[in-house]
């Protein structure tokens, strides 16, 4: 889960930094950069985070080394 969290976090950070730049860069192309790159980066990061939640909940909660139930 930690690996997915890291990847998700990096994507979200990249998207957010791009968004901040676009907001400060008052040019028409900034709008396109936000829509084409910033938005998808954040969206993919969020989706990966949700995937990490789902995938971790599927894993058995038993502690490592415990004997499997019969």
């Amino acid at each position, binding site marked *: *889960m*930690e690996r997915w*969290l*890291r990847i*998700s*976090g*990096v994507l*979200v*950070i990249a*998207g*957010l*930094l791009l*968004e*901040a730049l*676009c*907001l*400060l860069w*008052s*040019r*028409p*192309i*900034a*709008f*396109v950069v*936000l*829509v084409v790159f*910033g*938005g998808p980066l*954040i*969206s993919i*990061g*969020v989706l990966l*985070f*949700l995937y990490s939640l789902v995938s971790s909940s599927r894993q058995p909660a038993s502690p490592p080394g415990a004997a499997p139930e019969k």
Partner: protein
Amino acid sequence: MPTIATVVLVLFSAILACVIVVRPEITVTRAGKILAFGVLFFLPLFSLAMGMQDEMTRSESTAFCLSCHIMESYGKSLHIDDPSYLAAAHFQNHRVPADEACYTCHSDYAMFGTIKAKLGGLRHLYVYYLGKPPLPQDIKLYKPFNNQVCLHCHLGARSFEEGAVHNADPATLPAIKANKLSCISSGCHELVHNVGHWGNVKFWYGKE
């Protein structure tokens, strides 16, 4: 919300996301999981929504439209000191909001008018950066100017409804309202921006 507040929100979200990236093990606890949900789900989406809202609002401003070099002369036409220039007369007399002058007249007021205007803007960007942009004086509207944009404000106004020329022929007013007789291109109010054909016009920039 002003842009600077949105930027602060975005940077704050990014800093919190850094905490998760550097120390993902904090998500083992219940509080950590809640923090991760806020930082990697709620805050990024909220920041993105606020940023998009800011960009959409900014794209309606006169300064935004005129930030493209090719639009400079159209911006200058708003300051022509001659009331027969339609765009200048509307801009200088605040018949349209001065800070949203382009958007007010170049987006229709129908249900999807704003979306159509944004798609038109994307097309402009494509031509500007990847195509062959025309000279400013060669720029044409994609389709004839719709009277409904004018009528959004002028319909019902006394100067429009009781105007001598509008009532000289009983068929004129219904034809204008039905968009069958163009306000702009039928020879009545055709002097709009007239870029490239100004001659010796003067410019008015108001009181500094």
